[in-house]
């Protein structure tokens, strides 16, 4: 099992894309929950689907996992159409939904045995496989307890154990860390990395930018059913601007003025942070050349402008834009476009 390819059939090697969708649409009543999504997810990677609540992430995943029928467009998983060959798709995928996809009335052991039996293991093999997974996920002691008495982290681990029981080629993780404490979240991240290094493709939806940043090699940003940006985390950051200036003022009363000065000096978008004295401004550097140096120059000019306007700056830093900034910039842009339309 050294190569991730050796377990695959010929047809799967031909299709290097784990997921391909074209113009995928799902309509609920009057809402276009998914409104023409094109995705191309290379096999063997973690692909992040990033978006706020209600952006259409879960709906898209449910269509790809054969749980919902698309209303338009088409979707293929390892070359198999989700509508025409749902069984071929189901053989290759596994889903860990937003809500624990395990039976709460049953014990952890019973849940895994049930699933192993359904996947074709005979009685003895099913029990062995279940015990093996429980041990690997640190659930041996809790094996005989009903899942409803598990902690959030334990439940999530059991859920993922259930999803990798038959080592799927594609694993859907729908907001796997929502509601988890930081320790459990780190464990889930480690598990995802291990699963991918084994050759499984992971499609991860998340609201958390640092999660996508840490795990995904490519990210699609979804808002209101549409992909508004796609690329590597680096691409996305670069598309928004070379960097960002973080400024802390002494007097919160000067923030509105500072916002105006920064926006005029840098010509870009300024974000007011939750902290009443903090602002973040993007530095847009277009064209080629030494963008880092030009970013620094522009940042210096902006600080100068603040000083000239009599605004006292306590602290400042220059950095790469975080994905949060990328995300806000992108979603703001679509709002502007709509206003102009």
């Amino acid at each position: 099992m050294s190569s991730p390819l050796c377990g695959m059939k010929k047809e799967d090697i031909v299709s290097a894309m784990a997921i391909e969708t074209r113009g995928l649409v799902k309509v609920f009543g009057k809402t276009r929950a998914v409104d023409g999504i094109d995705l191309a997810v290379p096999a063997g990677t973690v692909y992040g689907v990033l978006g706020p609540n209600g952006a259409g992430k879960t709906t898209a995943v449910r269509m790809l996992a054969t749980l919902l029928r698309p209303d338009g467009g088409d979707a293929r998983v390892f070359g198999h159409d989700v509508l025409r060959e749902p069984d071929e798709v189901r053989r290759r995928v596994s889903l860990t939904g937003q809500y624990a996809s395990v039976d709460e009335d049953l014990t952890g052991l019973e849940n895994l045995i049930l699933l192993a039996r359904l996947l074709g293991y005979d009685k003895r093999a099913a029990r062995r496989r279940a015990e093996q997974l429980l041990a690997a996920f640190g659930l041996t002691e809790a094996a005989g307890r009903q899942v409803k008495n598990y902690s959030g982290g334990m439940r999530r681990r059991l859920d993922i154990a259930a999803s990798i029981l038959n080592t799927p080629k594609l694993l859907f993780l729908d907001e796997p860390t929502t509601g988890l404490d930081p320790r459990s979240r780190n464990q889930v991240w480690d598990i995802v990395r291990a699963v991918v290094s084994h050759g499984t493709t992971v499609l991860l939806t998340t609201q958390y930018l640092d999660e996508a940043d840490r795990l995904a090699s490519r990210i699609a940003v979804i808002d209101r059913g549409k992909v508004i940006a796609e690329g590597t985390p680096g691409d996305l950051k670069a598309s928004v601007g070379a960097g960002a200036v973080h400024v802390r003022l002494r007097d919160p009363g000067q923030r509105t003025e500072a916002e105006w000065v920064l926006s005029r000096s840098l010509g870009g978008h300024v974000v007011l942070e939750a902290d009443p004295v903090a602002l973040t401004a993007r530095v847009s550097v277009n064209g080629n050349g030494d963008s880092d140096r030009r970013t620094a120059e522009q940042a210096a000019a902006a600080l100068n402008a603040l000083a000239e306007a009599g605004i006292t700056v306590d602290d400042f830093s220059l950095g790469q834009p975080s994905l949060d900034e990328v995300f806000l910039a992108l979603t703001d842009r679509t709002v502007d476009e709509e206003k102009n339309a």
Partner: protein
Amino acid sequence: MSTATTAVEPAESTYTFSPETLQAVLAPDEAPRRASWLSASVTFGWRAMLKIKHVPEQLFDVTAFPIMMTLMFTYLFGGALAGSTTEYLQFLLPGIMVMSVIMITMYTGIAVNTDIVKGVFDRFRTLPIWRPSTMVGYLLGDAFRYTVACLVILGVGLALGFRPDGGVLGVAAGIGVLVAFSFAFSWVWTMFGLLLRTEKSVMGVSMMVLFPLTFLSNVFVDPSTMPGWLQAFVDVNPISHLVGAVRTLMAGGWDTTDMTWVLVSGVLFTVVFGTLTMRLYNRR
């Protein structure tokens, strides 16, 4: 692969992630063959039994409810309708058994509906298994519950003086026919369980269907005293024929007309509502 078992087993609170352990379990030694339709259905039936084991309260409706029904109607109507409760019981018991079991079939719909709300249903629907097996599993578990209800009622009946002429075989055959019909009839509820949004609405619809279906039948009295239009309904009501068939079997006889009705309606329920159930199941 065998190295996986050598891993330490950390307690819940001290779980630390080990990529090596996980890597080992990620490569299963044998890729199993696809589960057969029978094996998948039986496995889902096993799940239903496990749920009874963990939540035994759900057996309340197949024990207390039937006992209540039997006592209530025997003493309520016995004296007035047949002169004595013991005499009435010979007529009533098979009917009250049918009525109770048909009434509790509605819990199938509630069980399906509750599962949908939880995420586990999504997992089942993404498995490469015979599609109806999830539903058949519910029904297998329910068949067990129906049998329990039948035996409880039979026990109460025997204690009160029910003496069936058909003996053990006749009674067993009657229960068999009843459970088999209820299995088929329950597809109505799997459909509603998938169709309706809440547990409450499933409950409401069930009552709307079950009350007329069970009361407007020959469970309590001979239909010959009913007005013509009502007799017409009672005559085509499959529950009447089911009661007729079970009553005759328990009395040691055989009614071909009733049995044919039961068989045909059972097949129709399965085909029509089974198909509708699976359409809804696939489309959700």
